[in-house]
């Protein structure tokens, strides 16, 4: 097995031996060893759960950041469109009779204020 990290190293306290010890001392010794092993595995599980939670939170933060940047990108491209309409002064532009600079003739995109006279 290719070793990928510390957690992949085989523990010397495994359950490889399935036989029941015969002497009382051996049983007590294995009980004590397994008690330690159980505590270590429990700690490891807690760490995994905490990592999982933290990773989930990080994924959420990344998602929010992506959404924010996406919105900014949209706005930036909107401004670029504007600049494309009015490129820098050094760019020669041919103006025709058609009203390129004229608007669409409606108030879309404008804030309307009602006035009663």
């Amino acid at each position, binding site marked *: 097995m290719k070793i990928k990290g510390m957690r992949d190293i085989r523990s010397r306290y495994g359950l490889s031996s399935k036989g029941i010890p015969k002497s009382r001392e051996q049983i007590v010794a294995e009980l004590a060893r397994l008690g330690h092993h159980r505590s270590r595995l429990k700690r490891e599980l807690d760490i995994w759960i905490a990592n999982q939670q933290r990773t989930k939170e990080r994924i959420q933060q990344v998602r929010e950041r992506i959404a924010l940047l996406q919105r900014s990108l949209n706005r930036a491209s909107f401004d670029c469109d504007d*600049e494309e309409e009015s490129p820098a002064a050094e760019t020669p532009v041919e*103006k025709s*009779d058609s*009203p390129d600079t004229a*608007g669409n*003739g409606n108030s879309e995109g404008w804030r309307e204020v009602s*006035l009663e006279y």
Partner: protein
Amino acid sequence: MTMMNEARARFDGSDKTVLMLRPRSDFVETDTTREVIVRALAYLKTGLPVHFRGPAGTGKTNLALHVAAQLQRPVMLIVGDEALTTTDMVGDSNGYRYRKVVDRFIHSVTKYEEDAVQRWVDSRLTSACREGFTLVYDEFTRSRPETNNVLLNVLEERMLILPTGTRQDNYIKVHPDFRAIFTSNSQEYAGVHQVQDALSDRMVSIDLDYYDRDTEVAITAARSGLDHVAAARIVDVVRDFRETRDYDQVPTLRASIMIARVTVQQEIYPSIQNGRFVSICLDILGSKSEFTNEGREQRARRQKLILSLLERHCG
């Protein structure tokens, strides 16, 4: 307006606001006003700018707004002022737009590109020309004549010429739906400039005078809620006082509406027997005389005149 556009407007610093006009519930249209409206609309539909001129209190602004509403287009309203400049009309460069591009398309190569361009913000005339809105320029003769020079090309060549070097489109072709309505007071009014011939030559001027009695009664009744008979009493007093020419400031339809409104609010009938009504008339019509210490006799004489008119019409 979407949130994106609102945010963008704030970001740009531009005022992207238009007026949508609608008549008040007590708006009155009589045969006299209707005839003027029809004429004005005919000129506007031809593409000619219309200019309502006349003394204060003849309903110029109201008529201009009503005609503008009939065109069913968003409205840009400019009010003439001594301090108004061409910049206020067309817009100005306002701050800078800074842009920085970091290109890391190839991970081992980072390309930076930075530039800052002056940001141009359209003002109302430019927006109206560009978008084809209706421009109402109220009291335009209160602005200095050189401020209005920019209108010459707009009205004749249908071209708005912006200051050079401001932005790429220094020449804006005026939108075919763009229409302009002007109002102005008579030349003898305080704070009013003379209209340059070139500008007045480009517009159709419609002279407005004080409305006929029936129209004034109808407007007074509608604006105050008073019945027509009672409104007619007040209008007759004000009109006769106007005819005497014994005042420093012309008593207009506004005076009739003021008196009628207070009468309604105070729940009194317009009668000479009612002291409160007489006081209201003396206050409102008496204020048409200048207050000087030397003019006591004159004020007393004018008060007598108002009382005699009240006796005649509200007896």
